[in-house]
């Protein structure tokens, strides 16, 4: 698929400035992937399962929880989506996608069997190995559960490597909750699941309020030494980062042990187009996952 660069002589009889073609091959390298299943999650969110068509490429496709792919619909466009499935399933990915604009609207009209393009995986992941032996707080707001589902899968698959695990998840309304069918399974894996909505409905029996309220409640029952060995992964709208991370920091969890995922528009995923650039940082290359200390040191990051 990759085209070759040839270098023509400018002068008599000499090959000029040879450039390694292999280095360049990655740039537009698209894997063809088939949509193998589509699940409706909410009125505006679907889970797409896509599988890289070539079995060799599929095996080679390795990623970290937190990384993303560029999904391309030929003729429509390309956009970044976090991989929302287990990293142990190479090249067979689930993407949880919200219908917001041109590309996503088109995607929601495609059937199983359609081919899409994917490039990647790109960006940084959550440093799961660092967290071994520690407590984990997985905190998501709204669509933030999409990128969080991959670290959740990691924790489930390696449950013995972690101490206390909490998933704290909030949305505006109960109808917006994602992956409701998985909650029992998470609980069965000895994960504390706390769900809260900002506004209940007649059927809603759970707590009502903001995510920070859940955190307050849990923290009341945790000893000081709990906070000494706790990591947090926070995904959601940027406003949430500030509130949640400040609260965690007040409990003496270092900002370097909190991880967030930043959102920017991305056109290349390869630190070239500058769409995602903040100062000297390309979110697509050095992120989207950052520790909160780094985010605090970036202007206009959130």
């Amino acid at each position, binding site marked *: *698929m*990759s*085209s070759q*660069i*040839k*270098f*023509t*002589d*400018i*002068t*008599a009889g*000499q090959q*000029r*400035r040879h*450039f390694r073609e292999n*280095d*360049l*091959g*990655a*740039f*537009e390298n*698209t894997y*063809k992937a088939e949509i193998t299943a589509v699940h409706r999650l909410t009125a505006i969110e679907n889970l797409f399962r896509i599988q890289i068509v070539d079995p060799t490429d599929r095996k080679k496709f390795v990623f970290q929880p937190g990384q993303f792919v560029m999904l*391309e*619909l*030929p*003729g*429509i*466009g*390309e*956009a970044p989506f976090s991989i929302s499935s287990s990293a142990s399933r190479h090249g067979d990915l689930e993407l949880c996608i*919200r219908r*917001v*604009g041109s590309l996503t609207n088109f995607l929601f009209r495609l*059937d199983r*069997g*359609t*081919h899409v*393009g994917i490039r990647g995986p790109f960006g940084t992941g959550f440093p799961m190995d660092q967290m071994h032996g520690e407590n984990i707080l997985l905190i998501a707001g709204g669509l933030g559960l999409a990128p969080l589902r991959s670290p959740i899968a990691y924790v489930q698959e390696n449950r013995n490597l972690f101490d206390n695990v909490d998933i704290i998840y909030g949305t505006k309304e109960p109808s917006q909750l994602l992956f409701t069918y998985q909650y029992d399974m998470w609980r069965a894996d000895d994960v504390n699941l706390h769900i809260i909505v900002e506004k209940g409905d007649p059927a809603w029996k759970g707590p009502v309020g903001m995510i920070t309220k859940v955190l307050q409640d849990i923290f009341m029952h945790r000893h000081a030494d709990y906070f000494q060995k706790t990591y947090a992964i926070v995904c959601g709208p940027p406003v949430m980062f500030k509130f949640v991370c400040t609260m965690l920091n007040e409990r003496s969890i270092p900002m370097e042990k909190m991880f967030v995922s930043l*959102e*920017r*528009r991305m*056109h*290349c995923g*390869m*630190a*070239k*187009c*500058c*769409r995602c*650039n*903040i*100062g*000297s*940082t390309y979110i697509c*290359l050095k992120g989207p996952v950052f520790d909160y200390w780094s985010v605090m040191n970036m*202007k*206009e990051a959130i």
Partner: protein
Amino acid sequence: MLFRILKHEDLKKLYDLLSRGNRVIGPVRKGADKDGNPIYAFEEIGDFINIHLDYTTTKIPAKKFFMPFREVMADFRIKGKDWEKKIGFNIGSPFIVFGMHACDINALNKLDKVLLGSHYPMPYYAAKRKNMFIVGIDCIPQPYCFCRSMGSDTALHGFDMFLTDLGDHYFVEILSDTAYNFLRQITNAEPTESDHARYMKAASEKNRKFTAHVDTTDLTKILDMEFQADVWKKWGDQCLSCGTCANVCPTCYCYGVDESVALDLSRAQKIKSLYSCNLIDFAEVAGGHNFRPESHTRLKYRYYHKHRGFVEAYEESLCVGCGRCGESCLAGITVPEVIASVRGGEN
């Protein structure tokens, strides 16, 4: 570095030699502005007499030859649910840039750092950039030039040969063996002590002609500290968010990607177009949130990227001080003025 001396009348011989079988790009005169001053542009040269080596600055840099404003990145053939993607790096034929100023050569060196030397080298750029041969030429500082402040008034690398006019002959710096082999075919000489002295005199005379300056001392820190400063709002109110500054800048490389599809849905194209962080939707994300909704936040971002972010990443600024952006800005916004005002000087 090797130095040679080339007689004025032999320059045409060099041109003829280089242009044999190669495209030559060089500065030509395109017309005059309202005050009668000539307007120059880089264009393909058919004849040596069309080259104006004594040109001031071209309105638009040479970037269209290695970083076109619009470029097809890939073609798709679509058949129902399936498709094939064909990538083309648009290699083009090799070319010679005959008469490039030091600032523009330095601009290429900076672009090379991001587009070639980084994590994912960019083949679209490499394909053209690696097929260039550059003849540099000395220049006369213009009122808007501040390349000396940016350390770009001389080029140390990034060219094949560089000519400095010493009156009746050129002082030639040779950097590539390609250049050496070309030069071997025409009459030239070893420079003497007096040629060296004349070269140094010419250089110091040039230095004295710079009028615009930018104080870059501690600039990265100052930009950080003054991030919320009111002066940005002042400049932002003036800025039209037109993106001209990025258009004419030899180091601006930001782009956007669009796809278009044929009416019968059988073919599609992926197209890269140069963009500008001054344009309103540059930092907009899904859901309509815009990280830089006001013109001053975008203008500030352009300065921030060039004079702070890039310095942090590459230990140099992403501005060569060519002054083109200030010259072309309809709102009269110039880099020396903006930086001076952010530093708290005159504004």
